[in-house]
């Protein structure tokens, strides 16, 4: 089987598993919604509105924590026997790529749902929704590529949930800064060409994280 075919089958398997196991998905959504609601209550308890800069930063912080929780399960809460079984069926490259692609879609969906709810409760300063949606999709796949790989690393150690956060946060900083800057452009609404450099940077970061995962993941799982 070629890598492409393996990736296709593995993604199909991820979707079926997620659908059969809906409480995990619902858990992430509830996590997202309750975090947003807490932020909303915390903000309005002292003031009535929030500046666009703070809106932007708060949204991506919420996304960061939701993403860590959503992706953590891709390697951490999987029974070791099942992992072994996958490895007999497919190559390591196919496994990591399929996980990253699946998590990209998951995080993009979480981001869109989160943005919708966040905009409803905290107001919506974004004047260029198209660009904002593009940033959510690109940013989601960037978060997914780094976090999936880190989740693979953290799953091998004890205290893996705590490790997941401390290993990934510093690596994610450049990505998050770029995302927040691009979202700032979407809020200002000065048009697509101004944000082009940042979008290209985001795409480049995604590709480099993907390439590093492709090269390094085979070393992670062989025993």
């Amino acid at each position, binding site marked *: 089987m070629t890598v492409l075919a393996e990736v296709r089958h593995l993604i199909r398997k991820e979707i079926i598993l997620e659908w059969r196991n809906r409480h995990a998905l619902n858990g992430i959504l509830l996590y997202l919604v309750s975090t947003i609601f807490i932020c909303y209550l915390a903000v309005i308890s002292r003031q009535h509105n929030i500046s666009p800069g703070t809106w932007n930063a708060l949204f991506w912080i919420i996304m960061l924590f939701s993403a860590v929780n959503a992706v953590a399960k891709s390697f951490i809460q999987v029974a070791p026997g099942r992992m072994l079984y996958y490895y007999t069926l497919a190559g390591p490259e196919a496994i990591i790529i399929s996980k990253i692609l699946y998590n990209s879609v998951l995080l993009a969906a979480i981001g869109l749902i989160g943005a919708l709810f966040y905009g409803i409760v905290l107001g919506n300063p974004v004047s260029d929704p198209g660009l904002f949606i593009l940033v959510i999709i690109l940013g989601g796949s960037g978060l997914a590529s780094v976090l999936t790989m880190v989740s693979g690393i953290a799953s091998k150690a004890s205290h893996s949930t705590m490790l997941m956060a*401390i290993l990934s946060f510093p690596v994610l*900083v450049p990505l998050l800064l770029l995302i927040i800057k691009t979202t700032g452009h979407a809020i200002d609404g000065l048009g697509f060409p101004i944000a082009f450099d940042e979008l290209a940077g985001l795409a480049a970061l995604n590709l480099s994280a993907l390439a590093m995962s492709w090269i390094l993941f085979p070393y992670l799982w062989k025993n």
Partner: protein
Amino acid sequence: MRIAWWKWLGMVLIYYTIIAGFLIPVPRIPIVHESVRNQFFHVSMWFAMMTMLTTSLILSVRYLKSGKARHDIIASEFANMGIVFGVLGICTGSVWARFTWGAWWISDPKLNGAAICMLIYFAYVILRGSIEDRQLRARISAVYNIFAWSTLIPLLVILPRMTDSLHPGSGGNPGFNVYDLDNNLRLVFYPSVIAWTLLGVWITELRVRTKTIENIEIA
């Protein structure tokens, strides 16, 4: 006891850095004045840190290729030494900033980049601490070392050059770039880089030797 020539060289250069660094006449650059001497400590320690961390990366790559425990020990000790230089670099920079800019810490791409870099290597140390099995620890931490270095360090080098900054050497500030570097400064600066790097290699060598002995005792 026989001491290798490069250790003598390191010792001599450290004394030279400290004595000459405080005594030679330095050019009067506005704002910076005498604090330009910090270049022999702060800047050269960052250089030494980058050397340590890059060596650690190379050893991690070699470990993944070879699987020899020795490469893993050297990689982790170079990372530890890089952390020491990083912390010293942050401290010397912070003291300098207090007397030149008036604050211990300001928001600046170079400063924030340095802080993130430290966070990564602290995470590396914690990751190593939380895996019991020695071979697994070696392999996983090598993977993290390479992954973190390759996604982050190039950006830390590129990003500060794309944005304006208060830091000497960028944004038109008087600094340590080629045009400002006085011949007297050069006379101490280049040896000081070598001095701190050699000191770092020496400490790392001692630590690698003790770790290797500990490893033999366990095995």
